[in-house]
């Protein structure tokens, strides 16, 4: 079968570190990841896994105490790491946009929703208010909001689910090719979450936008992503299509993570937590960072970093268990 996948984003050997006093925290550590055009890529990990840092690095909006120390991020061939301000201005929000974590409170309480759209457009050089409001109305209809009423409301007049939809519409205003969503349903109730997930699926079908969906909730990923990258301690442990990773995960961390979720399906006697805690990322141990908690760890796992192997087409695993052809 011909492989028609096109990479819209290619991350190669990316490392991001935070400066904290004399320490350097290795938040993202030598990560490589390809995002295919038109897919929903789920990035899942616990807190401290580096998933949000990765998103901020793609957008080049890392906090001041963070440095990209190595690697490249190619977006349609343009290296975001080396891009100058002029290039970034042309890309950010227009071609890639993000809904950051906890963004529900990011709306300005004294501005009407309408003005949020107009200001965003103006900030990117679009003075045509008619175009902006028409585009905003169209997006709102797609997201099941009444444009007239919502555009003339203040943020406090909207519910959490409505605000989240306004943020999605704002992020999509300039017709970006990539939309990054960081924990977009975490603060929402069950029914609102379901509503937003279904809307995002519909939106994806209608616009074929590439989505990067970041969350700690693997059930949400199972529900909507095409592929999933499992992150742990700043590393991608496994990436592959969502059905394979959930049904037959290769990496011991993926296996353990799937079992650690109290869920509505499956045998509750098989669910168990992962003993131990995250390693100290300012002073990580040698070898595989999951080795101290891994039930299958061998001597080499504690000594040498495992290779990042493509064990099936587009399916990568970072684990010594699958490295037969490699030099040990």
């Amino acid at each position, binding site marked *: 079968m011909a492989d028609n996948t096109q990479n819209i984003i290619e991350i190669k050997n990316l490392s991001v570190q935070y400066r904290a006093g004399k320490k350097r925290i290795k938040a993202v550590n030598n990560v490589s990841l390809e995002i295919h055009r038109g897919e929903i890529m789920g990035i899942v990990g616990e807190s401290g896994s580096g998933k949000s840092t990765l998103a901020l690095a793609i957008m080049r909006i890392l906090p001041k105490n963070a440095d990209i120390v190595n690697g490249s991020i190619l977006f349609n061939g343009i290296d975001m790491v080396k891009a100058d301000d002029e290039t970034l201005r042309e890309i950010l929000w227009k071609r890639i946009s993000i809904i950051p974590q906890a963004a529900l409170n990011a709306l300005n309480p004294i501005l009407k929703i309408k003005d949020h759209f107009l200001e965003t457009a103006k900030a990117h050089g679009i003075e045509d208010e008619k175009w902006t409001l028409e585009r905003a109305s169209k997006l709102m209809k797609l997201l099941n909001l009444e444009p007239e009423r919502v555009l003339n409301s203040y943020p406090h007049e909207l519910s959490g689910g409505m605000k989240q939809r306004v943020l999605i519409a704002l992020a999509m205003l300039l017709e970006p090719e990539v939309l990054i969503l960081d924990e977009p349903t975490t603060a929402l109730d069950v029914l609102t979450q*379901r509503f937003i997930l279904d809307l995002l699926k519909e939106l994806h079908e209608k616009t074929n936008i590439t989505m990067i969906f970041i969350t700690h909730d693997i059930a949400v990923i199972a529900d909507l992503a095409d592929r999933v990258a499992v992150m742990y301690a700043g590393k991608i442990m496994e990436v592959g299509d969502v059905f394979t990773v959930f049904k037959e995960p290769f990496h011991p961390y993926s296996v353990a993570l799937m079992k650690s979720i*109290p869920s509505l399906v499956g045998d509750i006697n098989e669910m168990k937590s992962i003993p131990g805690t995250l390693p100290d990322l300012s002073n990580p141990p040698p070898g595989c960072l999951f080795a101290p908690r891994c039930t299958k760890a061998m001597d080499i796992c504690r000594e040498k970093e495992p290779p990042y192997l493509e064990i099936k087409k587009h399916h990568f695993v970072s684990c010594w268990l699958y490295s037969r052809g490699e030099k040990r």
Partner: protein
Amino acid sequence: MNGEPLVRVENLKVYFPVRKGVFGKVQYVKAVDGVDLDIGKGQIVTLIGESGCGKTTLGKTIAGLIKPTSGKILFDGNDISKMKKDEYLHYRKNVQIIHQDPYSSLNPTKTVFYTISVFLKRWGIAHTRSQLIDKVSELLEIVGLHPAEDFLFKYPHQLSGGQRQRVVIARAISLNPKLIVADEPITMIDVSLRIGILDLLLDLQKKFGSSYLFITHDFGAARYFTAKGGGLIAVMYLGNIVEIGPAEKVIQNPLHPYTKVLLSAVPVPDPEVSRKKKPIKLKSLDIPSPINPPSGCKFHTRCPYSLDRCSKDVPKLVEVEKNHWVACWLYKGG
């Protein structure tokens, strides 16, 4: 349930006054609006519902942190509003609460040892320093902070979220309480450690026979904890319990339309199952205001199955199958 329940809640109402503007009329948020509930000795009862359903208010009122507007709470057969001083102390000692946020429920300037030993001294359980160290160490070992001497003199910022929650649990069980109110105890804990905290609470139930009132919005956690502990799940909506029954019964065979709607909406960590689920559509996504809740069954404005009488008459909880109760006119005798 044999014998007298540990806690009996009778027609409990908790209303909070709100005023619109300085001269506006005072209105009441009906956070808990007529709840009857028994918690047996050593039993787990789980409250589940969306934010604003009253589950936390109900938990806090049972723990004595909020005064009810009307109704009764009996603890060991005694009405808590009529207790004499020593009875009240006995009650307060025997009901402990674990909050959601282990980051704000520990004093950042005090060591683990201090945090727990203050409690033990206050209630006269240990006095001398060596007694206190022994007792605190024992508690830390019970909650899985091993070896205890590594944790005794640590400050909260030196601990992970999971370890902090274990300290909070150690403090809560230090007085060997009969009831632990656990309000979203795993929500702020890392995913891979959540079941560990739930297993710890279940262990304590077996070892010390404590009862739990477990409060959560997470159906997966509710199922795991309540089914493993052989308890009951109670679903709340706008201040009322609309369904209560054994964990797996409520999860696998929900009776109330609201429970059905919620369960049909929850994503599950299995791509095939999650994508095949058919969410039941509500008539309206918006939760009505708890100030002026709808008449009759409060869910009728959103319920896809509502009948004429649902907007007029309030349904009572009826036992549809053994121990499984529902308040809905779709069931006989409602």
